[in-house]
């Protein structure tokens, strides 16, 4: 069986997989990182989005062997060692951008890539268009869009931190 070396959330792993093993299967079943989900079998829902070498990819549509030697970041790898959330995670919480939580890891990973690739900032329309590859059935996207806009401001230095609205 092929041997694959992946750096996942900063840690190097050498694992044996079948050639047909998908990256998401290697993450969930071999490395037991179950934060990355599978919501469809036609590469559309985006619940499986992770970062591979800095780009968002659908881990259900890439073989583990194709990712050999790559650096993977999953939802489990976003928060700091001390538990401080990534600004995107924090913004999702602040703006109630998740309900059942199933699409959330992929949504967050896509959102971070979207913001990273638009250093000049994002309009609401650009955010909505940028979520083409992620389906959420719970939220109607309204709060996801708000959260991404807020996180972009923090990530790009326009706002010092996610405003903690007074409840």
């Amino acid at each position: 069986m092929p041997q694959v070396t992946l750096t996942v959330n900063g840690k190097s792993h050498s694992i044996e997989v079948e050639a047909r093993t998908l990256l998401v299967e290697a993450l969930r079943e071999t490395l037991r990182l179950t934060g990355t989900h599978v919501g469809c079998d036609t590469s559309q829902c985006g619940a499986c989005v992770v970062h591979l070498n800095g780009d968002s990819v659908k881990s259900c549509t890439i073989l583990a062997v194709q990712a050999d030697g790559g650096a993977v970041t999953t939802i489990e790898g976003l928060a700091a060692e001390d538990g401080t959330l990534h600004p995107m995670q924090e913004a999702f919480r602040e703006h109630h951008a998740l309900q059942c939580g199933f699409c959330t890891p992929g949504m967050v990973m896509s959102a971070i890539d979207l913001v990273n690739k638009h250093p000049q900032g994002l309009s609401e329309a650009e955010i909505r268009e940028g979520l083409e590859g992620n389906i959420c059935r719970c939220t109607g996207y309204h709060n996801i869009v708000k959260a991404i806009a807020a996180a972009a401001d923090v990530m790009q230095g326009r706002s010092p931190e996610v405003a903690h609205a007074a409840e």
Partner: protein
Amino acid sequence: MYDFAYHKPSSIADAVKLLSEDPDAKPISGGMTLLPALKHRLNRPTALIDLSAIAELRGVKQEGGALVIGAMTKHVEVATNPLVLGAIPALAKMAASIGDTQVRNRGTLGGSLANNDPAADYPAAALALGASFITDRRSIPADDFFQGMFTTALEPGELLIAVSFPIPEKAGYAKLRNPASRYAMAGVFVAKGGQGVRVAVNGAGPCVFRQPEMEAALAANWSPEAVAGIHQSPDDLNSDIHGSAEYRAHLVTVMAKRAVAAA
């Protein structure tokens, strides 16, 4: 997915050798179409030949009046490449509209063209721009390359190396997306350049095709109004729950107008 052998050659020669040795092996580039098909067990290759380690298959360069784009160049790279943005902005814009961000981060120009999905975007661009398909053994003009649904002039084991896009004076693309799959329900790429005016239609028929009436009209008068009155025949167009052949035929005219306006 059925299991298969996996090879990752580092040169074109090695890849061609692997493919020629095993007629049931398949090359894989981004895998954006192939992997979903394999997951549904629609296909049973003995081996996948991963082309991603072959450096010579990637990149964009200008050669005379053409942009030569390596087959393994990703959609996102075409969409953001300064050479493409400068020389053929319509091609960059088209690439930026393929699928979603994650598809564009993996999917490649060569993979899309060699697959020749009738609803894919690249075939319309390549046909309208009069591109040449450079393989490991020859160069194929666009007019000969697209032969039918999921069928191209590539022979078994023949590898697409790069595609040469003549730089047009003007080009534009417009499409209407299928509300479910988000593939093109109908798209039109228009280009005016050294090969005259060329209009290619994707999504509407079983294979990308040229629209000669619109080409003639635009040659005489490059304006949206020139194509507004030209009706595409619905004969032989696709028909499904999302769009009848008649609707798709109508969209061809609408998208042609919009493509010209965008050019």
